[in-house]
């Protein structure tokens, strides 16, 4: 589905990624773990097209997407959430989610100026679809008209997931979806992620610090440290890998 090959990325002197290679398999949840500053977010940014790697390959569904701009990659079906929520704070929950569906709609400027006709039909269909598929699913019907800035952190994360789902993506990248959440919120989010994988049949790439969550729901784990890929395998393999233990204990010590 998605395969990253020998990715290198640096900012001036900082080497954020040094030869990262892995494959995320269709319909499965792949986790990227590593201490802070390991380069996980940079990897996401390279995959979604914000950072241009110095070297390497990003192949999505058999297509080399290295040269594509972020919006083209999104149009191919790559959606993501951000570590520090990047919703449109002034807009309502509903508008944020509608924005997620941008690439699926087709109204042009003249349709939009006229509204009645194609644009209206499309908007009403979209509204019904969002209500049924996302707002109900994520249990956020009580806040659909609320402005984002009025919502608590946990709900904002959920809305951001909803926005990504509205794209009907084939690859979903979640950057620390439960960071800063309490136990209950974390469990809710884990349930949503599993449901998404099952119901929508989406390939998921997950950056997370919560080891329980990772070990519970992921089928494949990639470990980064200082930009280097130090291990890869099933959760069990990774857990026993000496390099990983070294990295984590070393970082903790």
């Amino acid at each position, binding site marked *: 589905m998605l395969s990253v090959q020998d990715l290198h990325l640096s900012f001036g002197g900082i080497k954020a990624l040094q030869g990262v290679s892995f494959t995320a398999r269709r319909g499965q949840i792949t986790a990227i773990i590593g201490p802070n500053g390991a380069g996980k977010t940079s990897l996401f940014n390279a995959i979604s097209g914000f950072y241009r790697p110095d070297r390497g390959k990003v192949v999505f569904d058999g297509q080399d997407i290295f040269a594509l701009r*972020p919006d083209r990659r999104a149009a191919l079906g790559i959606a993501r959430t951000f570590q520090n929520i990047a919703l449109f704070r002034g807009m309502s929950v509903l508008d944020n989610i509608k924005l*997620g569906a941008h690439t699926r709609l087709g109204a042009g*400027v003249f349709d*939009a100026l006229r509204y009645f006709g194609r644009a209206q039909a499309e908007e009403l269909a979209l*509204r*019904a679809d969002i209500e049924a598929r996302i707002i109900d699913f994520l249990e956020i019907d009580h806040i659909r008209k609320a402005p984002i800035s009025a919502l608590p952190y946990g709900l904002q994360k959920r809305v951001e997931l909803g926005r990504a789902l509205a794209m009907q993506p084939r690859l979903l990248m979640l950057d620390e979806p439960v960071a800063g959440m309490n136990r209950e919120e974390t469990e809710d989010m884990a349930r949503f992620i599993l449901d998404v994988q099952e119901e929508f049949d989406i390939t998921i790439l997950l950056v997370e610090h919560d080891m329980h969550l990772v070990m519970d729901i992921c089928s494949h784990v990639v470990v980064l440290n200082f930009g280097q890929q130090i291990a890869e395998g099933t959760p069990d393999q990774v857990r026993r890998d000496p390099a990983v233990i070294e990295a984590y204990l070393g970082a903790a010590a």
Partner: protein
Amino acid sequence: MITGNLKSSYATDEQVLNNRWKRLFLWLCIAGLGLIAAFGNNYIILIACQMGIMLIAVTGVNVVIGYTGLMSLGHAAFLAIGAYAVVIFHNAAGAIIPESLLTLAAIPFAVLVSAIAGVIVGLPSLRVKGLYLAVATLSANFIVLFLIEESFSAPWTGGVNGINTPTPNLLGWEMDTRREQFVLIATLAVLGLLAAQNLFRTRVGRAFIAIRDRDYSAEILGISLYRYKLISFAISAAYCGLAGALFAYFYARILPEQFELHLSLMLVAAIIVGGMGRTMGPVFGVIIIVMVPELIKVVFGALAGGGAELAMIRAPIQEIAFGALIVGFLLFEPFGITQIVDRGLRALNRWPFARG
């Protein structure tokens, strides 16, 4: 608290005029315009026409600055392009196209030319943000006027001396009075405002707002920054081109100096005063920006009774008042009059249960 808003389908929830009062307000406005057209005296008609033309332009500027968040200080250039395009079209095509169809062809032509110019001027927006864009558009304003004034274009534009403008003619209806032209201007202004409002109920308008609020987040949702920034520029330039076309029809003669930086600043001032990125913002803003200098003129007229001494200081006072409006609103009510109105309506909605 939302009261009186019971809805039973998503379709009603998606409506813009989602309650009785808003619908009533719209109809009252249209009726008011009708009354002006029927009974307004010459002075009222003149002011209303000026406001209508400004409103169309400011609605366009609101799209690019207020909703898309691209700073522009050069939109007077598009009014100039629209105005001169109409005149040149009439002079060049007058021999080929029958008189009664000329205006119907000239206005779309002017709008189209402006929109294309908008795309060209908008090109820097692909590379630079904010401030750089403000200076790039400001530069474009100077350059467009220069091109109009230069001797190589003088045969078509009249150079610095300006050029006489034609009378509009809609399918044989020759609009040679200001009252008739008011009908045209008011109709287009209302339609323009409604069209702009429609824009923001669809993916196109939402994309603009997304770019304004967080451009990388918009990009990740598949919104092409290149394409939508240029579309935004083109739409706003098209509105300004329409305003320019009406400007040319309305005045007997147009001069390059009417489209200088001051006009660009007026357009921006209007949305700051009215409320950026709000549908009614341009309406309130234009009323204030046009009325304040008029009021000063009236007051001075009453005080001086034609005294030359006082008349001399009128222009500077008007200029200071204009600047003070911008500064005052930025300092004390940065979201403009729309915000004040919103507060008032909210209070009304809650009354008598709560205040404020």
